[in-house]
């Protein structure tokens, strides 16, 4: 338990620091950002809403500490005010609509790349001499060495524009009603193939090589030789005895990869016009929608920290030697 408590308090501190930055940033900008906001809104906001936004940012009467408290209160109650871009919808609502898609994209591609990469890495290290071990990892390394944008645009061009096999925009076909229907799920899956596929293609090699290196270390261990001496099937020796241990160093890399995956998803969403946070963030920046930008940064920070904590839970679950 002590390990998880320590991690939890670490993430909470990180979160507090992140949102405190959010509090300080507008204060460091030249001029009053709220006035800039008002100008940017081009008269769409009435003065009462302006006051609400001021309050949300802690630009209230009183000293800095009181302002900070007021700001904290609006953060923790998710009272983040209206979006300029999509006025008068609350930024919480806007973010709430697009966050699930980004989570789906970032975490989905990470999990698939992880599972595929670990499986391929395990297999190719155990059969290092064979065709698979000799050719598959270098081939994946070759693919992942393209800059992401090149891979994404190539996929976009071939599968979307040339072959017209897969859709080029949106998270699902707007003609279909969202719901728990086969049609809707099929449409979501079809729309996810290119964005997710491009992220997987780029991400997979890391896991293959992480896992392969970890496996090569573990394969020299006596407990692997003993498992072989026991006459266990090579499948069991490979995955249960060697793979199970080799995955530990790989699992520590997951936490870091989560952040990268969210960052990568922003680029992906822009290329494939996928309606996630990244897409909205880009539009928000272009429209100078400060409340929206801030809310997205806040939510990204929380999502990454939460995902990191889940990665820690995974690690504790994987390694019995860590005190629970």
């Amino acid at each position, binding site marked *: 338990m002590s390990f998880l408590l320590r991690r939890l308090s670490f993430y909470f501190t990180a979160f507090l620091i992140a949102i405190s930055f959010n509090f300080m940033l507008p204060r460091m900008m030249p001029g009053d950002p709220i006035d800039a906001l008002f100008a940017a809104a081009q008269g769409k906001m009435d003065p009462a809403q302006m006051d609400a936004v001021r309050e949300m940012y802690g630009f209230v009467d009183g000293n800095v500490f009181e302002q900070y408290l007021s700001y904290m209160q609006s953060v923790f109650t998710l009272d983040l005010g209206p979006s300029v871009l999509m006025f008068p919808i609350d930024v919480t609502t806007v973010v709430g609509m697009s966050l699930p898609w980004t989570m789906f994209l970032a975490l989905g591609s990470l999990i698939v790349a992880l599972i595929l990469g670990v499986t391929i890495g395990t297999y190719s290290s155990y059969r290092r001499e064979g065709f698979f071990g000799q050719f598959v990892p270098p081939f994946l390394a070759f693919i992942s060495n393209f800059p992401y944008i090149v891979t994404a645009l190539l996929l976009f061009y071939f599968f979307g524009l040339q072959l017209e096999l897969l859709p080029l925009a949106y998270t699902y076909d707007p003609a279909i009603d969202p719901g728990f229907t086969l049609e809707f799920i099929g449409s979501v899956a079809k729309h996810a193939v290119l964005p997710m596929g491009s992220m997987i293609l780029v991400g997979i090699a890391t896991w293959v090589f992480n896992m392969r290196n970890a496996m090569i270390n573990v394969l020299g261990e006596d407990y692997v030789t003993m*498992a072989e001496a*026991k*006459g266990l099937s090579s499948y*069991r020796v490979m995955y249960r005895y060697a793979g199970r241990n080799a995955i530990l160093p790989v699992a520590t890399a997951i936490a870091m990869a989560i952040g990268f995956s969210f960052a990568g998803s922003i680029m992906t969403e822009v290329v494939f016009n996928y309606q996630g946070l990244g897409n909205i963030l880009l539009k928000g920046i272009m429209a100078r929608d400060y409340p929206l930008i801030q809310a997205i940064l806040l939510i990204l920070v929380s999502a990454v920290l939460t995902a990191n904590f889940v990665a820690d839970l995974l690690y504790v679950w994987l390694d*019995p*030697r860590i005190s629970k």
Partner: protein
Amino acid sequence: MKEALLEINNLCVDYVSANGVARAVNNVSLTIAPGETLGIAGESGCGKSTLAFAITRLHKAPALISEGEIIYNGRDVLKMSDKELRDFRWNDVSIVFQSAMNSLNPVITIGEQLTDVIVAHKRISFKQAAVKAKELLGIVGIHGDRLKSFPHQLSGGMRQRVVIAIALALEPKLIIMDEPTTALDVVVEREILNELYDLKEKFGFSILFISHDLSLMGEIADRIGVMYAGNLIEIGDAKTVFSKPSHPYTKGLIASFPTIHGPKERLYGIPGDPVNLLRLPSGCNFQDRCADCMDICKKDDPLLIELNVDYHAACHKL
């Protein structure tokens, strides 16, 4: 002599590297009878572990068995298919590794590491195997509740016992023990060896006992083989090897070990360093360190000659 359980004929194991071929086991022939304990002694690097691994074909690249036969109960181990080999391993021959501490997987429970080998070889469920596993732990003096423990939750001695329990799981006819107790303190070592001997009485398996501790070996082995630079240079009944060794290397080894009961004597080491397997001299490998080196020793390899019934040594002086 009884029909041999294991017969090794002219076995050679090479390590192939860019610097050349190191022959870690050279032309070794030996037999182990049912129920017998054969000890293999020799200094570090003489090829004891390599020999042990080769018996169940556990040697990994760059090691290579280049010559010889390994006959177990009339079957040639080197000609077995993968499936036959898997069946043979642990069912017939189990191994307690040199670093038994590291031979348990740290993230798998003791219980699973005990039961999986039973399930892999016998047609029984994990549940039935767990009953058997509990029983096995009991035999080596560990409470059955420990099945759920991970290796790091046990002491070194307990882990060693667990490894022995795993080695006994399928009641093999031969257990290879590669320095099974070197990592333990003397008291625990003694305890475990005593238990091992009770178990041997009960189950009747043979043991190939590898150690560089000659005094320990003198107590437990029926016969002793001594290796030097990959060669078996002397092999015979334990008493004679101890009291009247024939090969100068064996003499040196025995003189360099203190006896607990005998009078205080000066200990003699063997002068010189172990030979480099990549640059072996022509003739006897021991020539540079031998006080009685003759001209022929620098020309011809000494062959194992029978000095007595079941007693062999390889030295030109004999």
